[in-house]
């Protein structure tokens, strides 16, 4: 168990590809960190640098007190779960689990004990003498997990371990991994492109975009106070509405409509307004500060319905309780304390 410190780490590939750009993350002992971002944002590259499978171009990676930049993967005291599980196809489940311990000279009795313990936790007891090809995807995933936990390493590294499972199993394994990590209290770095996985599993989320960190924070911080328009659109489902607007004398103007801000600061000039579907409500009465929305179509979700439409020319999705009255045009209010303003050029939060 250890802290993992990533300090100004960059990675360049041949031909000027800069996959990771000066990333710094201080990961606490026992913390579950999720690296999330769109495809190609450099999350796997960062994780693989921590694992030692990829060289570090610039910066320092420390596991515990030790700088590991030049340390071989096998000597970093980490265990990794791969997206395609990377089980050894010629070994039985038992041999797969024991392989890393055997190579480290762990006594036979201790190996047996840990393999038994891990297979009990992961419910793999019946499969110990099978080869990986005789297992289902979910079972293989468990073996990959087991291979990591028997090692009792300083840190677990996960690279999209659930993305090859079907949706239902994914939700179940998500919970199991989280629980297991809680119980073992092993520092974990988990890579995913699924923001829901990030939200549900992380102690802290690191949102990556184009090789740099957009924001680091707890799931709620990232959800409630996204530090950039990118984070705002990436975290949360449905994605936050981002609308072109402008500030005029302290008021927020969208096309020809005006939103009252109840004292919240609005700088003058062009702005990007971010508002979540659930932070809007049907207006009661016909007061000032209501905005008019034209309805395009409605998605019925059971507990709620998602209304898609346009506010002046800007697309907008609005979440309403099921059974709320609908018409072609809706008058809605925006909660001024739940509005997010971003600089349209830099994308940073204002």
């Amino acid at each position, binding site marked *: 168990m250890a802290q993992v410190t990533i300090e100004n780490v960059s990675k360049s590939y041949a031909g000027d590809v800069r996959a990771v750009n000066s990333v710094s993350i201080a990961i606490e002992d026992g913390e579950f960190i999720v690296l999330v971002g769109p495809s190609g944002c450099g999350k796997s590259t960062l994780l693989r640098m921590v694992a030692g499978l990829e060289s570090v171009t610039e910066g320092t990676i420390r596991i515990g007190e030790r700088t590991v930049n030049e340390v071989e993967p096998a000597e970093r005291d980490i265990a990794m779960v791969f997206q395609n599980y990377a089980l050894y*196809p010629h070994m039985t489940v038992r041999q797969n689990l024991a392989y890393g311990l055997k190579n480290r000279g762990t006594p036979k009795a201790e190996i047996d004990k840990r393999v038994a313990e891990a297979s009990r936790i992961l419910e793999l007891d019946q499969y110990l003498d099978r080869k990986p090809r005789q297992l289902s995807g979910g079972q293989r995933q468990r073996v990959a997990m087991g291979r990591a936990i028997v090692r009792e390493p300083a840190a677990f590294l996960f690279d999209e371990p659930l993305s090859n499972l079907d949706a239902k199993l994914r939700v179940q394994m998500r919970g199991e991994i989280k629980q297991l990590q809680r119980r073992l209290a092993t520092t974990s770095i988990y890579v995913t492109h699924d923001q829901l996985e990030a939200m549900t599993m992380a102690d802290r989320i690191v949102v990556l975009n184009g090789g740099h960190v957009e924001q680091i924070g707890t799931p709620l911080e990232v959800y409630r106070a996204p530090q950039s328009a990118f984070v705002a659109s990436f975290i949360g489902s449905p994605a936050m509405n981002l609308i072109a607007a402008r500030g005029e004398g302290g008021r927020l103007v969208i096309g020809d409509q005006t939103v009252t801000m109840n004292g919240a600061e609005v700088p003058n000039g062009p702005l990007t307004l971010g508002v979540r579907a659930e932070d809007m409500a049907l207006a009661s009465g016909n007061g000032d500060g209501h905005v008019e929305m034209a309805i395009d179509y409605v998605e019925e979700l059971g507990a709620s319905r998602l209304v898609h439409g346009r506010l002046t020319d800007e697309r907008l999705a609005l979440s309403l309780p099921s059974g709320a009255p609908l018409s072609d045009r809706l008058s809605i209010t925006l909660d001024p304390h739940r509005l997010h303003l971003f600089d349209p050029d830099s994308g940073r939060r204002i």
Partner: protein
Amino acid sequence: MKRVQFSSPYLPYLFLLPQMTVVFIFFYWPSVQAIQSSFYLEDPFGFGATFVGFDNYLEAFKSSHYQQIARFTVVFTILVTVFSLSIGLLLATTADTVIRGSGPYKTLLICVYAIAPPVAGLIGMMFFDQHIGPFVTMAAWFGWDMKVGIDYVDTAFAMIVVAVWKQIPYNFIFFLSGLQGIPVSVREAAAIDNRSRLGRFRTVTLPLLAPTAFFLLIINMTYSLFDTFGIIDVIVKDKAANNPITLVYKVYMDGFRGNDIGGSAAQSVILMLIVLLLTVFQFRFIERRVHYN
């Protein structure tokens, strides 16, 4: 896999016909002829044949010369197979680390190796040329007066080296593509689980290469037994006298130079049986232990 239904039930047989014809003309028919001739003593001048039962076989087995050639053939086959496999594997692993992810380089390298074997055979032969052969010159530096084609051991050495040399490119290509077929992530998982490069090779890479190695083992043994005929022929130049030759070459010598058709046929039937046994053995015992994905 796509299933294609033929419109006429005879069409598949028509497609098979050329292959079956070739197999029949060049394999079954000669085999039957050989088995038949092996029971006869044929007059060297073509005036009829006498049925002699198993005499031709007994004669071969009893002949100490035949036994000596059989022993050499075993040694030759083992050495050529072991060396060409292990050198091919060594080169392939070295190349594999270099060309990982570099497609054009890989294609280039494989092209070179693919056109190499016949050329390599020629060059190998030149190595041991009594006058211009660099191998002979080098041996001379160490006081080894190499007399290929005259001295038994020197000739055997040259045969083995050239045979190995010629087969390496073939093994290289198969091992290389076998290595490239091992998923990167499995190697990476092994790199995390095992600090020793050699240990990883032994416990992960090699077992995963086993199907390739098994295939090559059969190919290389067949090669050593039969396809080295050309090399042996060039080196001993029909003068088997005191030179090492393999069983196949003896079949040729006895049949075409000695005009002992019956004896030669008996020997080729023996070879046929050996191959049959080897194949059965390999598939029954070795393949079962090889991991196939």
